[in-house]
Structures are given as C-alpha cells and as structure tokens.
C-alpha cells in the first residue's frame, strides 16, 4: 500500500508544518510514501531541501523501493526546480513520475547556490568556495550590505552546513537563493536553507544535556540549549561557537534564523517578522532544518 503526502502548492517554511503533518501521518506504519507535488506552484529553498530530507527519511531499510515523487506539472515550476538543482539530488532518493526538462542547474541567476549535498567537511569547503564570488555581488549591490559582510555570510553558511556534518549522522542539503519577498517585506532577501533527516538536536545533545534539563528535556529544550545557550554535545569549551556566530552576524544585518528539529521550532525573530520564537508540539519530522534570511538593508518595517 502507498501512503500519500501532499506537497503544498506554495511550499516554504510556513507551509512546511502542513507538509510535516502529512508526512508524520503517512509514515506511521512503514508503508511506501508518495510525495505528490503535481500542484506545486512555488517552492522556497527551504521547501526544496525539506522535501529531499523527507525523501531521505522515507527510504525503508531492506526495501528496494524508493519513495515516489510526482513532479510538478506546471512547466515553469518544473524548470525552476530543475534549475535550482532539486531533481539532480531527488533522482537518487525518489522514483520520480513526470517528465523532467533538460536544463542544467543555474549558474547565473538568483540561485546563488543550487541544492547541494553536504556529507563531509570537503563538501563544506566546496560550498564556501563556490558561494563567495556570487554572494559578494548580490549582498553588496542588491541587499546593500557592506562588502565586508560577505565573509561573515560565508562563515554563517559554513557553520550551518557543519551542523549536518558534525551532528546529523547522515548527509543533508544546502541551497542559497536571492529573491524579492513580496509577501512579507516587499524587498529582496538572501535565504540559506539547510536540511537533513538525521538524528536531530535532541538526540545529538542528549548524552551531555538531558540530565541538566531532567523532565523538561525535549526537542524544544534541545533547540533552546543549542541556539540560545550555545551548548554543544562536545565537552570541549570551544564548541558551540557556530550558532552563536551566526546569531551575531544576523543581529548585525537584521536577519532571521529558525531551526526546526523533531517536534519543535525555534527562531530569533527580527522586528520585521511576526514569527513565534518557540513552537513545541509540532508534527514529528526527522533531522534538522535551518532557515537563515538576510534582508535588503534599510527600513525593514513590514
């Protein structure tokens, strides 16, 4: 039997909860999953890497059958997802139904970094090396950031990717894109999305942190410990710098970070956004999903 998981028509971090709910409901009995994206109209980088993480999690040990994916039917959407590098990665995870266009992942567009796998430190090197030249132009000319901010951007990207390498216990994906965010800000933003279907923050921090929290230990507590308190699963006092560094960078540029793991989601919410700082009791979704948004500088009143 195959269980259906609908991919939202507008697939971003907000509608991700709808997707995660459908995934959690369908994945309960170990049946093969069909991810239905035929009606998709748009997907943010967060949606794309999140869908890959779902495909990674939906693979059933010992079964030759991969989860199914119905590709978007709208030609523009299909082309966009292909240019964003989604199908290059999806082909390994899903049995894809639908005709895919023959276009290469974007090299010159708002896709600053196509969907890129992150499995090892070497991949992080490649990501940081690839992004800097293109990000520099976008950050300075289109977002109005100081050219010096480019290095901070690369640092933030590096640390976000390293969370996969060091904590997930599996591979994941990163994508970086610039676009005009009409709905929220009516200005341009650069978005970094990182996702994996690994062990998640709670499991990663459990050996060193769960006793300290006692009965309060949960996905939400683990996210709070990692992002707000800067704790790490390693006892080395130098650990836990990465997320703290990302926070400093985002504070300077009025940016946002949100991390979802397990059944919780935490966010550092800038004034221009109305997101909730901490949500608990969300539908269970494996691994961790990180969203970083850097807005065009100037007045960011929503």
């Amino acid at each position, binding site marked *: 039997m195959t269980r259906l998981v609908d991919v939202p028509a507008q697939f971003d971090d907000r509608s991700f909860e709808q997707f995660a709910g459908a995934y959690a409901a369908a994945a309960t009995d170990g049946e093969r999953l069909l991810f239905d994206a035929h009606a998709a109209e748009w997907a943010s980088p967060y949606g794309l890497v999140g869908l890959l993480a779902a495909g990674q999690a939906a693979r059933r040990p010992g079964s030759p059958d991969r989860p199914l994916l119905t590709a978007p039917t709208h030609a523009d959407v299909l082309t966009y997802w292909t240019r964003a590098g989604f199908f290059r990665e999806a082909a390994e995870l899903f049995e894809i139904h639908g005709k895919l266009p023959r276009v290469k992942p974007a090299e010159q567009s708002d896709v600053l970094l196509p969907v890129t796998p992150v499995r090892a430190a070497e991949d992080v090197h490649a990501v940081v090396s690839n992004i800097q030249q293109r990000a520099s132009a976008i950050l300075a000319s289109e977002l109005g950031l100081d050219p010096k901010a480019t290095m901070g951007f690369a640092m933030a990207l590096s640390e976000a990717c*390293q969370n996969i390498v060091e904590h997930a216990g599996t591979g994941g994906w990163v994508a970086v894109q610039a676009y005009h965010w009409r709905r929220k800000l009516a200005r341009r933003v650069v978005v970094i999305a990182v996702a994996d279907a690994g062990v998640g923050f709670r499991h990663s921090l459990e050996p060193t942190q769960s006793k300290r929290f006692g009965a309060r230990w949960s996905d939400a507590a683990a996210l709070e410990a990692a992002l707000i308190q800067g704790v790490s699963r390693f006892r080395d006092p130098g650990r836990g*710098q990465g997320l703290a560094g990302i926070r400093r960078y985002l504070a300077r540029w009025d940016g946002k970070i949100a991390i979802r793991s397990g059944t919780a989601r935490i966010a550092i919410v800038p004034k221009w956004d109305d997101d909730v700082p901490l949500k608990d009791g969300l539908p269970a979704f494996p691994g961790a999903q990180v969203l970083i948004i850097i807005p065009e500088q100037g007045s960011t009143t929503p």
Partner: protein
Amino acid sequence: MIQHIDVHAVLQESVSGVYTDLVTRPTGRVVRERIERAMATAQDPVTVTRIDFTGVGCIDYSCADEIVAKLLRDRRAVVVLSGISEGHREAIEPVLAGHGLAALIERREGGNGELEALGAPEAAAALVDELVARRLAVRTPAGTIALTLA
C-alpha cells in the same frame, strides 16, 4: 628567533583541491597539527612564532577555535598573528573572548609592525605586560606596542 609560518601554504598542503578558506573543524585540526609540528621541530630556539594568514580567504568560528584558540591555549612560544583581515578578526575575536584568551595581531604586513592585543580585555592586558616585562616588545610613543625582535 622569530619563526614564520605561512598558513595559506599549510592549508594548501592539508586539504585536497585549491581551497583558500579555513573552514570546518577537521581542516582546522589538520592545519593546527601541522603548525604545532613546525613549531616543535624548529632548529633554532624560537621566541616568537609569527603565524601569517595572508592569502587565506574566509575563516569560520570552528577553524578560529581549532587553530588560534588551541594554539594559544597550549602555547610554547609567543604567537603573533599577521595578515589578519577584518573578516578574519570577526571570527577570531569572539572565539578568543569566549576562551578568556588574547592574541597579538600585527597591524602592518611585512613584520616589525605595531601590535595589537585582541581578545578578552584582562588577558590582553596581561599578555602585553608579560611581553614588555620579558623585553620581547616595547610600548611605543603612540601608545601601541612593537616587537623588539627583528
């Protein structure tokens, strides 16, 4: 004697490919171990080790911690960081402050430049006092410090 270590060259020897960025902990660890080996096997007695970051692109917090903080924590000689860009400082400064450590940054390229202590304020003051007391550095009329060794 001042020992000179070219971090960019060490990085090129340490990771495959042609990357110029000091990112990820594994890379930081390999680079630090090579620097430690170079410091340990110097033929002449080393008083000051100048670690030159010229040519290094981005440094992330993980590498700043793995290389700079750990070298300072276990230091065997006075460590001076040179070729440090604004971007490098952004990674190194909070890492040092987090450890309660301080490092000497050489402001001018090419050596014999003025020094600045970067990191935790108390550790920075103590480091400067120690160098002056050991006559490895002098306070300049401009209120900075400079190495006495060539």
